[in-house]
């Protein structure tokens, strides 16, 4: 089974082209970092991948399911962490998770044991009864990551999940998701504009002005220079 495939995807906001014939593959079980400056088209790509809106041109395949032809089968295979927080702050961590589980058709004991496992995995088990409002930013993000694992997805989509977090929380969350990909065979697409979240062994996609500039192994693409310098050099040019 494949991981994530994007073919000739284009999208415009009126006259402005946000994505221009973007194509890439993330093989099953790989961690792919989608690196791009602000306004590169990352969030547009995520909205298309999660079918919040659809594009006329191009195609998306998630774990072997065509998103346009079989949207429900494809959506059932993805776990998403949006850039904007989506927790209900008035509810407890556990209630937030059981709400999400139910949206995926899980209830009762099965949902309970999956929620326990997901919270345990992200080190959030003791905080299950706390209100989301009382958690710090890092723990809220961990809750969202735990939540997106409940329905055992094959592909994780994370849109700049470390925005607004301190350095320690950022590192903890980046490491966690790298581990998830390594240990559980999950395909991950991690959008970021921060080069220090990317490991040399990650599959790297550099997006700039809606175009995919480079695709390959991060360590190979950067060569002998640091990834930050490589990225700045790649994205320095005009659109």
């Amino acid at each position, binding site marked *: 089974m494949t991981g994530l495939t994007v073919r000739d995807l284009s999208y415009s906001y009126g006259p402005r082209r946000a994505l221009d014939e973007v194509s890439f593959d993330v093989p099953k079980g790989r961690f792919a970092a989608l690196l791009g400056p602000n306004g590169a088209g990352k969030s547009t790509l995520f909205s298309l991948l999660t079918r919040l809106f659809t594009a006329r041109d191009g195609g998306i395949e998630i774990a072997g399911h065509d998103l346009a032809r079989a949207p429900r089968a494809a959506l*059932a295979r993805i776990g998403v962490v949006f850039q904007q927080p989506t927790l209900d702050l008035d509810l407890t961590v556990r209630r937030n998770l059981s709400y999400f589980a139910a949206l995926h*058709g899980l209830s009762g004991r099965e949902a309970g044991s999956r929620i326990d496992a997901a919270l345990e995995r992200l080190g959030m088990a003791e905080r299950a009864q706390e209100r989301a409002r009382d958690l710090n930013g890092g723990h809220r993000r961990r809750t969202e990551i735990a939540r997106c694992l409940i329905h055992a997805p094959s592909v994780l989509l994370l849109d700049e999940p470390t925005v607004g977090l301190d350095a320690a929380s950022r590192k903890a969350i980046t490491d966690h998701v790298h581990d998830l990909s390594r240990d559980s065979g999950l395909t991950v697409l991690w959008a970021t504009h921060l080069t220090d979240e990317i490991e040399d062994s990650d599959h790297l996609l550099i997006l700039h002005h809606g175009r995919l500039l480079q695709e390959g192994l991060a360590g190979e693409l950067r060569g002998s220079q640091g990834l930050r310098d490589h990225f700045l050099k790649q994205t320095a040019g005009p659109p």
Partner: protein
Amino acid sequence: MRHAFVALNAIVLREAQRFVRQRGRFVAALVRPLIWLLVFAAGFRAALGLSIAPPYQTYITYEVYILPGLCGMILLFNGMQSSLSLVYDREMGSMRLLLTAPLPRWWLLFCRLVASTAISILQVYTFLAVAAAFGIRMPLIGYLAVLPALAVAGIMLGALGLALSSLIKQLENFAGVMNFVIFPMFFLSTALYPLWKMAESSMVLRDICAVNPFTHAVEFIRFALYGQFNGPALGWTVLAGAIFFVLAVWGYDPARGLLRRKG
């Protein structure tokens, strides 16, 4: 099928849990119709003479006349507020979560309508209880018979809010909706005065009131509160609700890119 109902249950439960935690919202929603009932209606009592028309079988006071209209008002305000907050407010995130669930989009929107209507119904019953405490009572059967009427009317008004939120870009805040939707809908209806009273001042106004779906929702509630069934009012309310819902589903079609514009 099971999946769809598990989701419906969870969406309603979530709304109920949020409602319990937001008591301020509950009190605010109750104060508005109570002011109308206890202040406005008392003032107008002397000015307005109402003759007997179905479902009433005897002379009634003005407070009794506007009670169903105020039930409708709660549904109208809540329906609009909850649908619009979905798009404009902090609820944007939860909307994203909802719409990426692997269920048909129309079903997810319908679940959201059922959830907000359930909360509105709780508020209407609280309002009816307070009104009863002030001596404005309905026949006992009416309190039971009004439940399905409130559900149908609530879903119709919520669907209108949902359709507006998806179709009209200019309605960027609740004040705009108040001026251009809620107030005209409420005042140009039978909530405050009967149709024949409206006809005395202007036939055009009377005709506008007669086609206003809110009029039919209020009349359906009014008859139900006396244990009576008003078929045409139900028909118009369901028809309007179906049209608004189809518009909302069309508005939220991913190919139209609503969330692109709003979010």
